[in-house]
């Protein structure tokens, strides 16, 4: 429950609620947004970044924590791995068991390939499972893929790769239909029309949802389909390095059994990196909405094998993470809460911005409200602003919250906060990696022609900021495409002699750049265990 100080502020929020109902705060101009972002968005805090010292992106900016991992040593540099003893031999190896990896595996299987998923936790332990708000697709009368393109391109600061964005928007309706045919239960009215809402920065209501369990509903359906097809899923096993061959292709991966510590060798004609994001690296000490395994592993092993990164310096801070209570600090409060009508309100009960600006703008604006404006509400771990959730019931009628955002209601009720009656406290949380490994339209990396990337590990689909609902979309669109392309490519790939020479070469480059690190990467799991000695 709230502290007495918080309850004082709640009174002010309640006092202005009537006046705020029905009014729409002004949206910022392009110039205002620009100034705000430069001053308050964490991507512009120079001390949070470092320079990449080696490899294809040498000289470029990267979050300090990711930079450290790129500059760390391979965990198998001094291990004797016998590559002649092949434990798994497949056409397509998918690294990662989230939405992108599962979609890829299903399509590769559909194309007749011998495909296997390897994942360091369980299939479905992924950011996909936690995506709440929805998935975009321009499938309504007043909308079009071109309009979707414009929204995403502008929202991403005109930096998305046009070829990737074209695929995202043009293949979106098809992605929704594919999911629907697999049995995903989208919110529909009695005539079958999809119930769609706005997200931050959308110009049409094209957010499709499955209550606020959108990602969970998609993920559990994909997982069920993978299991129905009896696609092998090797769980609690991480890929720790890619294996290459004497032709410069990838040829599989070295795997680590997370429980026994044993190494294994997987040989594959094509490899898909679908390892997701990096929230658990806690850039700039932000809390995160990400799952336990989000440690950028795929970026590390791809980069070591020679694949370039793109936009690795742009991170998405979701404007509304939980600020209070501390037990769920940093957990996601879906943007759908604002889509349904809740306003962002400061300590004095003032609506200080339009609730549906893009995520980067909203996050920067909240940070400004809590810092320079001094209008945040003090919490045990910092500060936050109100998200005026009782407005949702006023706008949509009693019961709207339970019907449309049951997960949010449940999460807060666990701590005695009834969001139907009281507003909730939020602050930005580390949510999404806008950048990642660079791919071409077919999903292959630029440097290695039988290595593919899909999902959050890709950079360039969204540019320098991502709109709500375009990530669930991209894992499906690019996951499926990667699966199909990998299966086709595997048919005409002849592997040569396998080796791990690139690890030696990388280590030498580090040494030549004067970098000596005792740490190893990929990280695999965050270091949360507290040890007194």
């Amino acid at each position, binding site marked *: 429950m709230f502290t007495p100080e918080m309850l004082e502020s709640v009174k002010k929020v309640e006092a202005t609620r009537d006046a705020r109902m029905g009014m729409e705060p002004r949206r910022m101009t392009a110039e205002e947004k620009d100034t705000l972002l430069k001053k308050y968005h964490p991507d512009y805090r120079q001390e949070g970044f470092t320079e990449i010292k080696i490899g294809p992106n040498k000289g470029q900016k990267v979050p300090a924590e990711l930079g450290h991992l790129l500059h760390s040593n391979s965990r198998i540099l001094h291990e004797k791995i016998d590559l002649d003893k092949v434990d798994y031999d497949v056409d397509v190896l998918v690294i990662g068991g989230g939405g992108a990896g599962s979609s890829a595996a299903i399509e590769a299987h559909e194309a007749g390939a011998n495909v296997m998923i390897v994942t360091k936790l369980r299939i479905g332990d992924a950011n996909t499972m936690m995506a709440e708000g929805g998935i975009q697709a321009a499938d309504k009368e007043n909308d079009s*893929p071109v309009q979707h393109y414009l929204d995403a*391109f502008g929202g991403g600061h005109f930096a998305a790769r046009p070829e990737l964005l*074209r695929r995202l928007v043009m293949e979106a*309706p098809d992605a929704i239909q594919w999911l629907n045919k697999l049995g995903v239960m989208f919110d529909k009215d009695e005539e*079958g029309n999809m119930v769609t809402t*706005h997200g931050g920065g959308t110009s049409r*209501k094209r957010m499709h949802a499955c209550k606020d369990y959108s*990602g969970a509903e998609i993920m559990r359906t994909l997982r069920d389909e993978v299991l129905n097809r009896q696609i092998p899923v090797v769980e609690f096993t991480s890929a720790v390095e890619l294996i290459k061959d004497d032709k410069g292709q990838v040829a599989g991966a070295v795997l680590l059994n997370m429980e026994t510590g044993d190494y294994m060798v997987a040989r594959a004609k094509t490899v898909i990196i679908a390892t997701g994001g990096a929230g658990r690296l806690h850039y700039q000490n932000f809390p995160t909405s990400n799952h336990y395994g989000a440690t950028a592993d795929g970026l590390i092993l791809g980069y070591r094998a020679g694949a370039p990164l793109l936009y690795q310096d742009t991170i998405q801070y979701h404007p509304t993470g939980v600020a209070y209570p501390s037990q769920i600090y940093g957990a996601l409060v879906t943007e759908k809460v604002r889509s349904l009508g809740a306003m962002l309100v400061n300590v004095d009960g003032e609506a200080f911005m339009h609730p549906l600006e893009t995520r980067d703008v909203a996050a920067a604006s909240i940070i400004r409200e809590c810092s320079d404006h001094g209008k945040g509400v003090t919490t045990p771990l910092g500060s936050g602003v109100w998200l005026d959730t009782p407005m949702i019931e006023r706008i949509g009628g009693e019961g709207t919250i339970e019907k449309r955002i049951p997960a949010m209601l449940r*999460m807060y009720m666990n701590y005695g906060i009834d969001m139907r009656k009281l507003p909730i406290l939020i602050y930005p949380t580390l949510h999404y990696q806008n950048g990642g490994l660079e791919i071409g339209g077919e999903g292959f990396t630029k440097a290695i022609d039988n290595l593919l990337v899909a999902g959050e590990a890709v950079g360039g689909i969204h540019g320098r900021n991502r709109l709500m609902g375009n990530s669930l979309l991209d894992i499906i669109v690019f996951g499926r495409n990667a699966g199909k392309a990998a299966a086709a490519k595997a048919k005409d790939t002849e592997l040569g002699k396998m080796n791990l020479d690139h690890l030696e070469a990388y280590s030498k480059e580090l040494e030549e750049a004067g970098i000596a690190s005792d740490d190893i990467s990929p990280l695999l799991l965050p270091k949360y*265990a507290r040890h007194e000695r």
Partner: protein
Amino acid sequence: MEKMVNVFFFGKKYSVPADLTIMTAMEYAGYTLKRGCGCRHGFCGACATIYRIKGKNELKTCLACQTQVEEGMYVASIPFFPTDKRTYEIEEIRPDQRIMMELYPEIYSCIGCNACTKACTQDLNVMQYIAYAQRGEFEKCAEESFDCVSCGCCSVRCPAEISHPMVGLLARRLTGKYLAPESKHLSHRVEEIHEGAYDGLIEQIMQKPIEEMQELYNTREIEK
């Protein structure tokens, strides 16, 4: 000085700050979690946990990431539970009562003890959705089971050895695919795209210079 409580992980006593969740308390105690930890925000069901408060008889189930520690809590996590998922081809099956009988016949052995509902970490009416499944009322079963995170606590406690999460999942897929009305606007748009209706327009917008795109974006009309 922060308030501490005594908890027992697998029978071993630790003193931990009272405001932690079971999950963060285990990490505070020094555990590096591999199993029993997934999304950490209540959506994946990886951290199914069973506990009893010292001096009380009742066994409780919960998600470790969503539950605050209490004094005298004896905690055991359930790292894996052999839930029995049956495989099927979604294109081949149909939403009739027979399919449940074929795939999950044990649901008809339910003795109505309600242990599943009592064990549910999401407070769902699990026994009710199993009853709907028995009667072939898949839409109701789907709706009632919708918030399931497949933690498996229900199955752990079930004397009839039912794999409840799998039953709910089947009902939801049948509902999503076969029972919910078709979205005609969706099929229509997919057709249009396949026929190339937007090919020219998308090529055009991809070619536009940045300045023109900025102008288009900043002045675009936003649906109310």
